[in-house]
């Protein structure tokens, strides 16, 4: 039983982190075709927010709760700045945003190195998370459950926002057909900006979760950005269910493969699996049906 539950649970937690990293990407990629390689650095920013909050508020249990909204706002504002300074000039050539944001990511990483040092800082685990619960004989760290809950909560909020608010309706309209949405009076550029804020903020929240597992590190974002993008591509752009399923699938698959082989071989095999899946379904698992070509 242990051989199944352990990878399943850790894999689900990994999937939850991947989901937090991928939600912002799938929003901006699905809506604007923008590929934001700096999204990984927003995770890093979130992790540093968690670290800094802990320096100000000494009680680890309180600071981690406070850090979540702060990380959302700080990372979101950074996203807005990125949109306003770089991305907005490049909406007509989305593929180029990939390279420009790689440059932004390099600068942000170096900034973090200069401010906080090349070595990472540990984030103290609050007492109420520093426990293990017994699941079918496996002592599961509670922080992994916290990560999953955080991801599920973010997902639920995002889903509610997209489904039931007028802002969410505007986002969905812009994703499905930008020109038509504009003719109906949707201010698509404003919607783009808000989506960027939202997506970057979600990455910040993900960063708080990561900081509980691996602490902070200037290069923390680089290890998540490629898997997160694979999740987005595999899930199909424009809706959440594909991303959720893909994140969970990639997380669990990696965990099982790690269990059977080794960490690095698991990574290679997961990538190979995703490529194989994509040759079967080039548009990802789920897609918004449109009448456009290809």
């Amino acid at each position: 039983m242990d051989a199944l539950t352990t990878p399943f649970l850790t894999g689900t937690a990994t999937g939850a982190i991947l989901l937090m990293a991928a939600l912002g990407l799938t929003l901006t990629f699905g809506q604007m075709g923008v590929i934001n390689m700096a999204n990984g650095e927003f995770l890093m920013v979130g992790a540093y927010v968690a670290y800094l909050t802990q320096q100000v508020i000494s009680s680890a249990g309180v600071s981690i709760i406070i850090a979540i909204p702060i990380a959302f706002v700080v990372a979101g504002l950074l996203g807005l700045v990125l949109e306003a300074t770089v991305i907005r000039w490049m909406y007509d050539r989305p593929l180029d945003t990939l390279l420009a944001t790689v440059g932004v990511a390099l600068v942000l990483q170096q900034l973090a190195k200069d401010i906080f040092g090349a070595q990472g800082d540990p984030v103290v685990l609050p007492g109420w998370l520093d426990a293990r619960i017994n699941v079918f004989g496996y002592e599961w760290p509670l922080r992994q459950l916290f990560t999953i809950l955080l991801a599920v909560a973010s997902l639920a909020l995002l889903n509610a926002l997209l489904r039931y608010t007028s802002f969410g309706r505007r986002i969905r309209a812009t994703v499905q057909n930008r020109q038509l949405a504009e003719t109906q009076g949707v201010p698509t550029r404003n919607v783009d900006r808000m989506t960027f804020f939202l997506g970057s903020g979600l990455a910040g929240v993900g960063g708080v979760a990561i900081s509980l597992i691996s602490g902070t590190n200037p290069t923390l974002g680089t290890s998540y950005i490629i898997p997160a993008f694979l999740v987005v591509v595999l899930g199909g752009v424009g809706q959440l269910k594909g991303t959720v399923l893909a994140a969970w699938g990639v997380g669990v698959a990696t965990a099982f493969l790690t269990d059977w082989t080794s960490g690095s071989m698991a990574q290679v095999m997961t990538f190979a699996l995703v490529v194989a899946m994509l040759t079967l379904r080039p548009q990802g698992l789920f897609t918004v049906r449109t009448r456009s070509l290809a």
Partner: protein
Amino acid sequence: MTAVVPETKVTDVTAADPPPEIIPARHRRSPVKDYGALVGIAVLAAILLLWAPSSLSSFRLSNLGRYCALALASMGIGLAWGRGGMLVLGQGVFFGLGAYAMAMHMKLEVAGPEGVPDFMTLYGDGTMPVWWEPFRSGTFTVFAIIFIPAVVSLLMGWAILKRRVKGAYFAILTQAMAVAFAVLLEATGKETGGFNGLNTFSTVFGYNLFDPEVKQNLYRVAAGLVIVFLLILWQLYRSRYGELLVATRDAEERIRFLGYDPANIKLVAFVTAAVMAAVGGAMFVPIVGIISPLDVGASASILLVAGVALGGRTSLFGPVLGAIAVGYGRSTLSESFPTQWTYFLGGLFVVVILLLPGGVASIGSKLAGLRKREVLT
């Protein structure tokens, strides 16, 4: 290219000459501009092959040789990305395949006819994997440098392009490929040298690497290959295929409706780019003396793309000059100002992509465009 005779004669005599803007560019191009590129290649050849070996110190010459090896890979990126619209972020894989093939052969040269590379006895049990055996032969190695990347890229490209995966999807997949390749190399330390890579060579195809004469000749081969590749690309770009490739980049659906298969057109560019990267990798190893996962991973691949973006992705010379500039900047600036170099590189990405998407090569035409606008107003 003087008398313009269309290949298919218009039989309808009443049809007037088509307006100049719809005459295919191939028929409109002025011979002067067309062959002007050859003059450029000749100038570059004179600088790289005549001036540099006689005036540069051996240290600087071997540095220039390294930039040339990187430029070979960059030219492939120029073909695939600039002309084919495929943002290849995983050229490190093919660069690495070529480099590791060469490095394995050189490693076996050090080990001797029956010997086993030193790291295998150091970290493993002293037995050599079977697939190392053929690399004892120099002929096989040269064959492998070309054909292994060609076959790998053909299979990858076939799987990806035939399914019409393009744009960002293509870029992400190729980048994931580079990450996976580097991780795979690091994980197989006993077979490939792992994180340390392959190093400490003494000879290449029997020539002593420490001999200044041999060093200079290695540079000459790398620089000569740059010129050869430039000539190949020049011919490719002005050929019918070159126009088909640009057309596929700009309007893939139209090309499909005209009866071509865009996947095949792109596949040729992708495989050619892969082979170019592999040759670059094979030249990199004897000149630099080491190949490690760091040289082939995602960030190394992105750095190659940075050079191409800086120089000008669509131009013939842009990728070469961009690669040399980025290589030079990296080795001089990053040693004396490591922090500033990262900021500079990051800023370079943003500024070039944002303001100068055609790279430095497009400055001329941009200025000309500005002047024209001034005249008009």
